[in-house]
């Protein structure tokens, strides 16, 4: 058994939030740079160069990559051999978010009483926390800072169990056609397939956490999205999306939940391991 103070989790969350908002994940930068070479429209090329300039200015001057410093989504995997001491886990996570957002002058975007007075909580808490117990004695933490321009573009559909891959593609294309331009393309697209309605949506977010190489079907779907020619910033062009990842989970014989998560080009994901 290993004893870990949740203060370490607080500090980690604080660092991950700052890093996510100031320094684009190198894998994200690499995917954007690679895609920018294939863009042929002049406006599209210009948008790509603005995106890459933005990355440099943000890192050097410590100005957030986007003014929507997002809702903080935290994925924590805790080894079952770990005993946590100190603040309760959720309080520890929210303390880290509060510290990062107030000390760095990020925008506080969270409001309570959402269908009533919509009062700003003034520290960007609470965050959305997904916890999972895993074997071992480590804690894996991933933070996804998500702007709502892209979160509003999320789609879920409960399909019958008899559909084939072509219908997944059609649903994807419909979603991107309808909502892609508003979600700040070039997009990172996560697709969650299986589980339940809520779990498919969670999968569609988890799909974008580690940015592993795409498989053949994912590359095919990406190409298909790019044929829509929505282009960078939605102003037309070859590159509507730079990366697409599918994450699946077993589901019920009677259905097939499919969730599509359109993430903006500023995919702010950061991870670390506490050992």
């Amino acid at each position, binding site marked *: 058994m290993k004893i870990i103070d949740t203060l370490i989790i607080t500090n980690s969350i604080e660092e991950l939030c700052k890093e996510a908002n100031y320094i684009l994940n190198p894998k994200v930068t690499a995917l954007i740079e690679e895609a920018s070479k294939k863009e042929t429209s002049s406006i599209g090329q210009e948008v790509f160069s603005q995106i890459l300039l*933005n990355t440099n200015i943000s890192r050097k001057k410590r100005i957030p990559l*986007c003014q929507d410093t997002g809702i903080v989504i935290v994925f924590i995997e805790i080894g079952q051999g770990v005993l946590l001491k100190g603040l309760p886990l959720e309080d520890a996570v929210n303390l880290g978010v509060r510290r990062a957002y107030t000390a760095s002058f990020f925008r506080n975007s969270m409001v309570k009483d959402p269908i009533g007075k919509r009062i700003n909580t003034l520290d960007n808490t609470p965050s959305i926390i997904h916890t999972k117990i895993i074997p071992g004695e480590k804690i894996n933490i991933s933070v996804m800072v998500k702007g709502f321009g892209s979160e*509003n573009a999320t789609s879920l559909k409960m399909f019958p169990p008899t559909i084939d891959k072509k219908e997944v593609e059609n649903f994807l294309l419909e979603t991107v056609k309808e909502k892609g331009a508003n979600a700040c393309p070039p997009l990172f697209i996560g697709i969650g397939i299986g589980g339940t309605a809520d779990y498919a949506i969670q999968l569609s977010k988890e799909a974008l956490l580690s940015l592993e190489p795409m498989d053949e079907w994912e590359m095919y779907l990406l190409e298909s999205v790019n044929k829509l020619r929505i282009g960078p910033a939605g102003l037309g062009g070859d590159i509507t999306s730079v990366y697409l990842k599918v994450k699946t989970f077993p589901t019920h014989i009677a259905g097939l939940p499919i969730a599509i998560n359109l993430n903006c080009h500023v995919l702010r994901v950061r991870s670390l391991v506490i050992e």
Partner: protein
Amino acid sequence: MSREYYLNLPLTEEERTSLKAGDKAFISGKVYGMRDQAHKKLIEIIEGKGKLPINLLNSTIFYVGPTPPKPGEKVGAIGPTTSARMDPFTPLLISNGMKVMIGKGRRSKEVIEAIKIYKAIYLVTPGGISAYLSQFVDDIRLVAFPELGPEAIYKLILNRFPTFVGIDTGGNNL
């Protein structure tokens, strides 16, 4: 081939009609920064025939909710939010004198119709490049609805702020 214009606000009708979808427009001057809740409040005031806290005549509205400036800095990260959410409120603002909008993404048919009737114009700038765009904003000040925090109405002074013409006065869409 897109053309480039450097323009000072407020834009004259002649300047607005000369801009065509796809042109690049570098904008300088005063704009109001506002988003969802401020739109809702302005509409309530207009419908209740109350006194507006800002002058809409020939105004420019930038759909924005900036990060607060750090101590010693004039501005924080600044960039557009999704314009479509303002669509239900926009035709009434246009009919009350607002002429230029800066935002990101698509607009509704009703907004495009109002743009054509009143010779207004919609400028777009990419989202998610707010550190870059902050270089083209000289000043930002709170104007109205301070209780709304980042959703209040701000006055921003733009300085050669880069945009593309998204929807021109003829309703042509980029």
